[in-house]
């Protein structure tokens, strides 16, 4: 037995172990412009996300394209380093509690203890054997099988590579291990000596899964693993993933846009919107009593085989705002059908509205911001400024936005707008282990609950 196995044998495999703890993870990509490529802003792809993945469980991660799911998946699997917060691997339940205490405690003693804990568990601070231990125990299966499989390698080399790198097998034994992995994902010996391009999209995804399984990991991050597969193969793979999980205590972070799949597979669900968690909780509870309007919109848009034939799918209006300038308050307020005056209405909402109404936008010369809620909009003519001011008082804009306006004053060609300042909407508890980041909390108004 080699050094890696010693490390793994020290890990106590108890069910309430937290395989992975994600704490306030941020990933901001710099936006560079100009000849000198100076940084003019940041795309906040992931902006303060926390959750746990426990041994043997499946956490489903859903959300719209570009909301940061893949970025988060890459941070979790150590393929990219977060720009803030940390990802911790292999903590017991007690150690996670300690971690949370330390993170909240600013004292020098706490920081020293934290630093020590981070050297052993924080995945971007690991070294030597601990790092190898993490690397082999956390694998990833990607969305785009074309990009993730080396086009010049044969299947036997692709699937066998981790076994060779970690000196698990060689020669005939390696071939047999690869054949057995291929058979587990519904392929066979006759596929060993082919190149990725000789397979259809679905067959390539199975090769990726076989490769991820090779080292018998604790956690696999699955980024849209079955979205290119038809249902029959998907059923095989979902059954297979379940069996592997049951037999080996494997945990999954399951990133997908298919709500039928997460509903079937996930123990817990995290919905993400624009880099933050909108709602998280037990899967059945979330589907039965979704607390966040965004989760409700996702469920309304999902076609289901058991629906009435007449049911139409509901598209969510509006588009995902720029993650470089996420909305204030609640990030969903620009698209939320039930938004309140407290949801974070801001100067950018006026600018967004101007962008969609062409004539007025052309007259806009500049925006002088005091902060996100307070600014003077300069126009080329006083008429244009008056036009905006009267629109802001009309019902052309949402009522909630209008009520959030504390001041609209025209002076010359400028309109001063000031909205009510509100803090970012935080997650609040809605039930045991069920959290949502929405100001509307039905359980507060109905006094009877608990």
């Amino acid at each position: 037995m080699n050094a890696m196995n010693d490390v793994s044998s020290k890990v106590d495999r108890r069910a309430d172990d937290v395989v992975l703890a994600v704490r306030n993870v941020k990933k901001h990509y710099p936006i560079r412009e100009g000849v000198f490529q100076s940084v003019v802003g940041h795309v906040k792809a992931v902006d303060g996300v926390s959750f746990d993945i426990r041994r043997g469980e499946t956490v489903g991660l859903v959300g719209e394209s570009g909301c940061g799911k893949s970025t988060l998946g890459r941070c979790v699997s150590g393929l990219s380093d977060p720009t803030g917060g940390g990802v911790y691997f292999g903590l017991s339940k007690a150690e996670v509690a300690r971690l949370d205490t330390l993170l909240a405690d600013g004292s020098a003693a706490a920081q020293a203890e934290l630093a020590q804990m981070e050297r052993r568990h924080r995945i971007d601070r690991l070294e030597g054997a601990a790092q190898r231990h993490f690397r082999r125990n956390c694998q990833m299966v990607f969305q785009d099988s074309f990009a993730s499989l080396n086009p010049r390698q044969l299947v036997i080399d692709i699937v066998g590579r981790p076994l060779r790198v970690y000196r698990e097998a060689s020669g005939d034994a390696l071939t047999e291990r690869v054949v057995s992995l291929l058979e587990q994902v519904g392929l066979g010996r006759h596929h060993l000596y082919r190149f990725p391009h000789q397979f259809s999209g679905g067959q390539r995804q199975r090769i990726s899964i076989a490769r991820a399984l090779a080292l018998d990991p604790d956690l696999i991050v699955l980024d849209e693993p079955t979205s290119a597969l038809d249902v029959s193969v998907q059923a095989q793979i979902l059954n297979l993933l379940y069996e592997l999980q049951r037999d080996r205590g494997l945990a999954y972070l399951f990133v997908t846009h298919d709500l039928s799949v997460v509903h079937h597979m996930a123990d817990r669900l995290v919905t993400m919107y624009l880099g933050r968690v909108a709602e998280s909780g037990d899967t059945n509870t979330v589907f039965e009593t979704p607390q966040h309007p965004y989760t409700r919109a996702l469920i309304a848009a999902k076609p289901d085989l058991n629906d009435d034939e007449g049911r139409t799918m509901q598209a969510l209006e509006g588009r995902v705002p720029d993650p470089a300038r996420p909305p204030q308050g609640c990030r969903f307020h620009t698209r939320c059908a039930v938004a309140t005056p407290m949801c974070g209405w801001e100067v950018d909402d006026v600018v967004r509205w101007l962008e969609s109404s062409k004539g007025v936008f052309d007259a806009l010369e500049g925006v002088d911001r005091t902060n996100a809620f307070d600014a003077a909009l300069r126009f080329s003519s006083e008429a244009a400024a008056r036009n905006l001011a009267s629109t802001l008082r009309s019902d052309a804009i949402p009522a909630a936005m209008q009520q959030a306006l504390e001041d609209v004053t025209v002076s010359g060609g400028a309109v001063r707008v000031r909205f009510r300042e509100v803090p970012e909407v935080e997650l609040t508890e809605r039930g045991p282990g069920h959290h949502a980041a929405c100001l509307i909390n039905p359980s507060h108004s109905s006094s009877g609950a608990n």
Partner: protein
Amino acid sequence: MLDMTNRPSGLANSPATIASVRDLTVHFPSKRGMVHAVDRVSFEIRDGETLGLVGETGCGKSVTGRSFLQLLPIPPGILAQGTVTFHPHARCGACAGTGCDACNSTGRRPAACPSCTGAGCAQCNGSGAETVELLRLPEDRIRRIRGDRIAMIFQDPGKALNPTLTIGDQLSEVFLQHRTEELLDAAGIGPEDRGLAARLLGRLASQRNGSIDNLLLSLPPLRGKRNLLLDALRNNVAAALAETQIANPYQIIDRYPHELSGGMRQRVMIAQALACNPDLLIADEPTTALDVTVQARILELIKDLQKRRQTSVLYISHDLSLVRRICDRVAVMYAGRVVEIGRTDRIFRNPSHPYTRGLLHAVPTAATKRGQLMAIKGTVPELVDPPPSCRFVGRCPHEKALCRSKNPELAQISDEHSVSCFIHDAAGAADAPSFDEKTQ
């Protein structure tokens, strides 16, 4: 759904179909023999309808879809037999494109056969409609159809976009070529200069150098309208992107494909295909990388296009719940063959091929216990030199000796519903399989 049966057309026989695939057979040579990727596939796409094409991975859906545009990898692929005929649309003669009863208010109608001008002749098989055989069309003509009369959304957005051009330049090309009228309107170019201006824009589009800031724009009648045109172009491109709910369309315009996420690239490709105003849209898993709210939006856009232009859609997908919702008819493919085809409600209420039944049982739901999805046993057979038997043998729970000795043909079992399985084809015969009997 559109009424296909009694639409006046002015042509000898109004073609109710926009395209028909007949006996399409595509082979790929491999070390162990010939892979029969697509085997005598026949179906038609009716004018204005959405036909779903579903089936297991590798069953030949994409190869079938790509054959419409000669995008098959030939060689190494071999087109063994078959035809794909297509009836392009043209501006409606009765209303000059403004919309009338004759064209279902779309302003578009099947184009008349050029050799008989609609009366019906041998070349158009008596239909009077222009008939193009796509598989054997010369390169220059198929290039003119590609992205114009027929547009395709590819399964792999990574490969479909040009990595060296910005998103804006790729989409501009489409607008310069296919949406010339709108650009000229926006630039305020009068009717007397239209013809010349349109030709100049077409030339710009075909230069494919990614830079439209060009000498051609300094020629009359475009001179002086240069900025108006460039603005209109930029606005139209941004609007097309915005329709697919991409954030910050004006910024996306200046980015390169590799700077976008998979879902964003897929939407760029969709915007590009829809902007072409095609008569036929081949959508190969167009929404696989997209989440459900955007998917619902894309489907609305496709439906809009169908209303506006009478566009027919071949919708390739593995999502049965989605196909059930959006398709008029569905074709189920298995191992290179069509095994069941018919009206959507018939297929889903009364699935009549053992494979179709298997597929429907494999759909994950919350009610099914984990690990207990009904996966169809076994794997897709190697399509190398297949024997003359039903392709589903070995996986079918009902197979009998007959199934291993003969290949069932697609046969109608009821109005608008055809199946290829001996349960229906040889029903009653002594050695015929039956749904009542499981053979394991």
